[in-house]
């Protein structure tokens, strides 16, 4: 029942978000000059969609590795108090490993705008 409620809430909000955009009120396509991307009177030479030079790509790869490990942490948190010292040691090791990764990335400048 809870899952049904969750689904209903999400779908109702989605619908609300769509209705707030008044989808029935779409006028005829405005003329071309009205649809030019805004640049304060300036013009783009090309489409904006392009091979965009993401400046933080090493960070995103770092995150992927990190996050996979993080996913183990949630079940761990639930049994932490029950398991006691073993869990604490486990966490220390986990944070240590991640810490080494971050320190290394920082030393190599991987977290800067490339």
């Amino acid at each position, binding site marked *: 029942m809870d899952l049904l*409620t969750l689904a*209903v809430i999400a779908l109702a909000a989605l619908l609300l978000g769509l209705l707030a955009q008044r989808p029935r009120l779409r006028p005829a396509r405005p003329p071309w000059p009205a649809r030019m991307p805004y640049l304060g009177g300036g013009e783009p030479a090309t489409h904006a*969609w392009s091979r965009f030079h993401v400046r933080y790509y090493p960070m995103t790869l770092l995150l992927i590795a990190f996050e996979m490990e993080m996913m183990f942490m949630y079940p761990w948190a*639930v049994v932490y108090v029950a398991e006691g010292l073993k869990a604490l040691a486990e966490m220390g090791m986990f944070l240590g490993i991640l810490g080494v990764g971050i320190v290394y990335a920082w030393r190599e400048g991987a977290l800067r705008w490339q």
Partner: protein
Amino acid sequence: MSDVLLPTLAVLGTLLAGAALVAVLDQAAAGVIAGGPFRGRLSAPLARAALLWLRPDATTEHPDALLWRLAPAAYLALAALGLAVVPWSAEFVPVRLPTGVVLWGAVEALATVVIFLQGWAPNAPLPLLGAYRHAAAGLSYILVSMFVLIAAALPAESLAFDAVVASQEDLWNVVRQPLGLPLFLVVGLGIGVWGPLRFADAADLAGGTTAETSGPRRLAWALARGAMLVAFSAVAASAFLGGWLGPWLPGPVWLLLKMLLLLALLVLLGRLLARIAPGRFVGLAWLVLLPLSFADLLWAGVLALYGGTP
């Protein structure tokens, strides 16, 4: 039927009313800071909403119309998902999900996606830059959020928000884990595209992802942003301020009061702090906030084992 309908109405009603309240609070904060005769009145946000409802939509030369339409709606739906798992009292929890804390993490991750899409869809330079900026921030603050929320879940021995609230019966997490709430507020600024982390809709991009939107579409986006802040404040109140716990007043009132406090704080921070450079934020998040959240988790872990609950 009513056990589906009532939670749905409660969540959506709170989001709508809360988003309006955020706009009013923001207006008030701006008026106080800017000084002089009160800019508009407190009804100005309402008038602005009416105007946006009436104004026509703008569009660009060759947008991804489907994604553009879906992004604000999905953002609002994510806010609703987040708020749905927050308990209002011991009895009334819209959705009792044993993994509510993880679901909130998923909401944060998916919010990054929809904010990116909102900027990608118009196929215009300024929204596109906003989208990529936000992705950098969103992928940086998410780890901080995971750590501080796991720290909040440690004493509860559960990932459900009702258990997290119940574990703060004696002492709220904001005292027990002093680093948690400040770090989590950074996440709130990010997920609501607010204040110093307003990368996607930045002023230097002429509104960024909203630079090409007008009318109802812009209204939907503003509504979703406000709703996301409301959902965030509910989660933060439950994880760190004891949620619905409190003397004298009924649980839902306490929750709303605490949400109001957090919203006021977020609005004030948003009006007083300058937007940081995105590259600097990435460095800050990984090299300062993340180690601080490590410390928060370690502290919470040691406390949970040896703090000794009376």
